[in-house]
């Protein structure tokens, strides 16, 4: 056992929380509906999030119909258009991405990957899902109330958001704000679980530096979300006060349609600060779990340890901290003190360094690997392409002076769809193809999976890459009608139509994914416990799918880090984390 260091600073987590109340379901209702088992809650989160995500996908078709073929569908009038873009944005960012990464993958993977029996507060975990469900239902209801959902734009900027000529001012805006408030309360209950489970319920031997990067990503993202979501909470409550109690937190003196409103003195910029103080960390709340998951996908399918694990961990932590001091790069042209631009441009471009390091390390993991191009790996590669593309266009928007012409144009739309729309969703798909065998015991169909990947990846790139150039030309975002804009040549309208057609194709390809999910439940190839021959603990459970309590009689003991792939001298090209080690490891590296 040469080369084994005894670093006294790494503390051992408690083997097992002594009187952790393990919840036992007694009936069908408490097993599948009001379940307190994190694995069931994870599936509930995932199914709800994917369902509401499908609604948002259909909304995106309606947006593209209007932009590519204006006037073709009379149903999309200008009021509906703004309601559609608002709901599309809000659902995708908060109710799909945040909920799926943290509520879905977090719930499933945290207990299994750290070697716990369940989350530490199972009851709060159940409440978390049901509050999320109520929040989603409020959004759904808002489509059917008089006036429809709010059309304020997903950023909900006052004063417009609560004025009487905004679509959905009767019920929509109220339902939206209340839904967000409930979502945040629900998330907080879940987030406490994720955080404390990682801190307190790790198996014996699972030091922080042995955690898979998936857990690091989800953990840091959760901590960030816990601290950042209150900003949205406060903003939503204050906006409700402004709307229904007549306060003037955000509402200045203004004249709407020739009539002086009773508001006065409020600051619309204050709302923007609060919104983006949540909104920027939110980007990384979505990105960090994706970073973590993609690291594990690449490492597993390239049969090679993740390159520069320590740097990866430090980068995650560094990004997490830095992302709290960059929010105003969304506000360079908001009319805030322009001198802030110096500070925020600098912090924003600094954050590019740890992010770039992560990209290098993914790419260097492929170098001298043994690359198996399984479907999860394909999606991970798709992520690298779209994330690098979207991350680099972020350098345009973060550099304050380049942002000035591009801000509020289609360049921004293209950028954030690439970097926090397409890229994380490709990771979600990859992760589902990767972990579906553990959740259900069966593999997802390979051929359908490849078809799904190619159409989604190539199609999405063809949608969003050319879109940058519309913004470069000067086309503002959130335009219902782009006809007769002087700077737009006829060819730009053709490009818009092309983008729309690609969007329809990519959207329809998702049907194959849904079909695959359902069909493989019954007809998929039986997976066995560890189909990808992976090292992490979730693949070492005694049963597949893991039974209640995850580990049978004895908790796993962890002997090594999560990335012992292709270790020289080992019998196989992977060594599970819970396999006792007597390997001689030279002091290399």
């Amino acid at each position, binding site marked *: 056992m040469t080369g084994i260091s005894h670093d006294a600073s790494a503390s051992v987590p408690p083997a097992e929380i002594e009187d952790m109340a393990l919840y036992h379901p007694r009936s069908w209702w408490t097993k599948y509906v009001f379940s307190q088992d994190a694995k069931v809650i994870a599936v509930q989160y995932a199914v709800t999030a994917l369902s509401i995500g499908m609604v948002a996908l259909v909304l995106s078709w309606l947006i593209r119909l209007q932009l590519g073929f204006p006037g073709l569908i009379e149903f999309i009038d200008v009021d509906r258009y*703004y309601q559609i873009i608002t709901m599309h944005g809000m659902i995708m960012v908060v109710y799909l991405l945040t909920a799926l990464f943290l509520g879905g993958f977090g719930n499933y993977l945290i207990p299994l990957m750290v070697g716990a029996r369940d989350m530490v507060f199972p009851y709060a975990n159940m409440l978390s899902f049901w509050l999320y469900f109520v929040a989603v239902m409020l959004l759904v209801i808002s489509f059917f109330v008089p006036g429809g959902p709010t059309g304020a734009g997903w950023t909900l*900027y006052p*004063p417009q958001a609560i*004025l009487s*000529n905004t679509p959905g001012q009767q019920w929509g805006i109220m339902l939206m704000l209340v839904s967000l408030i409930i979502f945040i309360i629900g998330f907080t209950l879940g987030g406490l679980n994720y955080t404390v489970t990682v801190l307190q319920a790790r198996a014996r031997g699972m030091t922080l530096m042995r955690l898979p990067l998936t857990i690091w990503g989800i953990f840091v993202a959760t901590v960030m979300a816990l601290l950042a979501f209150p900003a949205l909470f406060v903003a939503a409550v204050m906006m409700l006060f402004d709307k229904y109690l007549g306060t003037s937190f955000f509402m*200045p003196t*203004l004249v709407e*349609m020739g009539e002086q409103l009773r508001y006065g003195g409020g600051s*619309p*910029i204050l709302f923007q600060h609060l919104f983006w103080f949540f909104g920027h960390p939110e980007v990384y709340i979505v990105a960090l779990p994706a970073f973590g998951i993609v690291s594990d996908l690449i490492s597993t399918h390239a*049969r*090679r340890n993740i*390159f*520069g*694990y320590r*740097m990866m961990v430090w980068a995650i932590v560094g990004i997490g901290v830095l992302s709290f001091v960059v929010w105003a790069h969304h506000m360079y042209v*908001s009319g805030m003190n322009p001198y802030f*631009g*110096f500070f925020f*441009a600098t912090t924003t*471009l600094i954050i590019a360094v740890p992010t*770039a*390091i992560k990209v*290098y390390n993914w*790419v*260097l993991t*492929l*170098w*001298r*690997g*043994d690359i198996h191009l399984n479907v999860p790996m394909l999606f991970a*590669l798709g992520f690298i*392409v779209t994330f*690098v*593309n979207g991350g*680099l266009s972020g*350098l345009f928007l973060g*550099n*304050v*002076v*380049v942002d*000035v*012409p591009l801000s*509020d144009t289609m360049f921004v739309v293209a950028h954030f769809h690439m970097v926090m729309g397409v890229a994380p969703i490709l990771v979600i798909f990859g992760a589902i193809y990767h972990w579906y065998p553990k959740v259900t015991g069966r593999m997802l169909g390979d051929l359908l999976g490849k078809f799904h990947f190619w159409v989604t990846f*190539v199609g999405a790139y063809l949608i969003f890459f*050319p879109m940058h150039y519309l913004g*470069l*030309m*000067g086309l*503002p975002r*959130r*335009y*219902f009608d*782009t006809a007769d*804009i002087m*700077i737009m040549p006829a*060819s*730009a309208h053709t490009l818009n139509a092309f983008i729309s057609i690609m969007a329809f194709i990519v959207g329809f390809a998702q049907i194959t994914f849904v079909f695959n999910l359902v069909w493989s439940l019954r007809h998929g190839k039986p997976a066995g416990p560890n189909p990808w021959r992976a090292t992490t603990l979730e693949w070492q459970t005694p049963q597949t799918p893991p039974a209640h309590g995850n580990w049978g009689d004895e908790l796993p003991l962890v002997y090594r880090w999560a990335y012992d792939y*292709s270790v020289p001298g080992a019998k196989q090209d992977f060594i599970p984390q819970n396999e006792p080690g007597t390997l001689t490891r030279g002091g290399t*590296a």
Partner: protein
Amino acid sequence: MVIAVVLVLIVVGSVLFHFLSPWWFSPLASNWNYIDDTTVLTFWICGAVFSALLLFVAYCLFRFRHTEGRKAAYEPENKRLEGWLTAITAGGVIAMLAPGLLVWAQFVQVPPAATDVEVIGQQWLWSFRLPGADGQLGAADNRLVSPDNTLGVSPTDPAGQDDVLIEGGELLIPVGRPVRFLLRSIDVLHNFYVPEFRAKMDMIPGSVTYFWVTPTQPGTYEILCAELCGVGHSYMRGVVTVVTEEDYQAWLSGQATFASLSL
């Protein structure tokens, strides 16, 4: 294998698209060629990084694809390599940020010679106010807005009496003279954006924001609203025409002043 080819195609296609497609900045009509230069510099740096990374990935996929008997290398980290990559990245970031901040310093400092033009946004109309013979704009406040005084100009401020008001009409500005746009909103957020000038800024009810440009090319340009301002957002357009100094003076003297309008 297919994916390696596709990655190469993506690099080649994206680069070709960038150079060959007809979609690019609208022709510049102001002094902000620095902004364009910084953008182009950013394109070069980012394009190089994008191409290099993707080609490297494509090579890895080709060279290290799974074949019978292949075994991956075991190398947990390489401090030297990571250090170099970090340093190079930091260098690239500085190369983009430094010129960006220098140009921003110009952007936030309005030249003393700039003349003021007030732009007033309301749903969904652009109005303008220019200083009269005294060269000063009078005070204004949304609380003063009424059917007779739609822009909220203070009737008691003597400096405002000779202000030229243009409600919903075309704005003319002289070529070659720096202009400071003072931006005000009557109702919701708007954003005064002329793509050919490159600069833009939000307009906030209750405060006055600004930016400055020097128009360099005579011509007629469209004003677009670039901040969601309700259902009429995409219809909120206006026209600004850059003309010679003589034409400008001739046009200005023909416009109505606040005093004449409130008679």
